[in-house]
């Protein structure tokens, strides 16, 4: 028996979704406004000028964009290796202290980012490590590992043990079993985890402000624009680009994990 949703529920759910989406729609609207100095609503006029302005007149956007892409790519790569190893180890094994270890692995996202940030910074100070791209990557990889780990762990748990056993019985060694049996089954989960990690790193600002020194990633550039705005609609244009860069991998990640699940059932 399944009754239909009641009206109050429908209205409340719709309002909740509208609340989530109207602000994002407004960001897009304001990228076209002719008003540069304030957030006047409704916009006095609409223009495409800011898109060309962002592309041609603002060379300060490009270096942060490239730095962010580079950091996100390397952090994701590191996270894929370390996160998968951790998930592989903890998915099947049973040993004393396993629960505590699992908790340890999710700690970097369970504690507020500011703690991770200031902790890393004080560690760099103590070791006299100068700020560089690598100090940013070190911070990002730490929470990216958690994202990949979570995704991989969920898949490893669903992995069927009998296929691994069959492969071993037929004479494959552990490496062959990994390459031909395990990897194809976890690949989409890793891809999903990697994409989410990339999106997370590309967007991270709280930890980065502590580990970047004078370097500017795209979120740090944007933070600067929020505090001292100039050409406000250009910030909106960049915001749209940032949303696009994170939406695509997140959507892909969604389809990869769904595919992996539906094949099982």
């Amino acid at each position, binding site marked *: *028996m399944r009754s239909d*949703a*009641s009206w109050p*529920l*429908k209205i*409340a*759910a719709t309002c*909740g*979704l509208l*609340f*989530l*989406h109207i*602000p*994002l729609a*407004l960001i897009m609207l304001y990228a076209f406004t002719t008003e540069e100095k304030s*957030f*006047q*609503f409704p916009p006095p006029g609409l223009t495409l000028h800011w898109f060309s302005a962002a592309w041609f007149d603002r060379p300060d956007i490009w270096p942060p964009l490239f730095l962010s892409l580079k950091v996100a790519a390397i952090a994701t790569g590191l996270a894929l*290796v*370390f996160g998968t*190893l*951790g998930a592989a*180890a*903890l998915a099947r094994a049973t040993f004393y202290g396993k629960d505590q*270890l699992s908790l*340890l692995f999710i700690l*970097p996202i*369970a*504690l*507020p980012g*500011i*703690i*991770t940030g*200031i*902790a890393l910074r*004080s*560690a760099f*100070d103590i070791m006299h490590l100068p700020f560089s791209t690598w100090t940013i990557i070190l911070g990002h990889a*730490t929470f990216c*590992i958690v994202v990949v780990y979570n995704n991989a762990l969920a898949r490893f748990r669903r992995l069927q043990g009998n296929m691994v056993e069959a492969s*071993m019985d037929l004479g494959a*060694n*552990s*490496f062959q079993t990994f390459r031909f049996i395990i990897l194809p089954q976890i690949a989409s989960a890793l891809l999903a985890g990697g994409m*989410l990690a990339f999106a997370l790193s590309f*967007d991270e600002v*709280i930890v980065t402000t502590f580990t970047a020194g004078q370097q500017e990633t795209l*979120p740090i550039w*944007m933070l600067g624009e*929020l*505090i001292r705005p100039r050409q406000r609609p250009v910030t*909106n244009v960049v915001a749209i680009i*940032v*949303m696009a860069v*994170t*939406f695509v991998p*997140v*959507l892909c990640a*969604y389809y990869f994990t*769904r595919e992996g699940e539906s094949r099982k059932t």
Partner: protein
Amino acid sequence: MFNTLSDLFFRRPKALTALLLAPPLAWIVIVYIGSLLALLLQSFYHLDDFSGVILHEFTLSTYAELFDQSNVQIILRTITMAALVTLASSVVAFPVAYYAARFARGKWKALFYIAVMMPLWSSYLVKIYAWKLILAKEGIVSWVATSLHISWLLDALLSVPVIGGSSLSFSYIGTFLVFLYIWLPYMILPIQAALERVPHDYVEAAADLGATQAQIFRGILLPLALPGVIAGSIFTFSLTLGDYIVPQIVGNSRAMIGQAVYTLQGTAGDIPLAAAFTVVPMIIMGVYLTIAKRMGAFDAL
């Protein structure tokens, strides 16, 4: 050689586990836990007020400073905000999660999921920026209020002491709204996951035995969704506790823990006190996580 290694792994599975575990564990322990310990260590040092030099000797006086009235206020203010945001987000999230879990089907369900995922993964700064647009004096909220002839209501709200301010984007109401907006998806998803795990038979059995929709909701769905609410609250609470960017951009001059930490370690150069401040959310979250684990919230993550 591969075969020898392979045989070893087969005979000693513990060796394989250890080998797999070593690199990621080393990363987390050295980079993360190591840094946390370095931070904790700093909190036992003390900044000399006269010379402005950090004295590297063990003392608890930095922790004593935490109990200064102004610092206690910062901590209480932050906890209050985190609690209110958590409460409000669970109220707003529940109908969305409930609808998605129990009524949306097929294509709609996927659409619902994406509709929650997109805002969740949208850029954090973009989301704050959106609210700067909305709450600005000349922005859409004022426009709507003027169009509906209820500007007086907005003005009355803003003139309330403590939560009011010169405009919504410089008030606690604004800070609260932005926090609610940003962390809402983190609350929706675990509640939805918990509701989806409620076995169908329970609901049907209750309906067969004559329970009304309201009774089913109160007697079955709400208690079984509670672990999901708690799991979501871990995020909303923890993220609000440590955030320093939202109150900096949308809010008034009275600081929250995150801002205090940021200013102390930056311009003020008082790293020991900043470190001691970060211990507060760590302890709060430690207690919170322990309680959450007891209530089975981790299964809903």
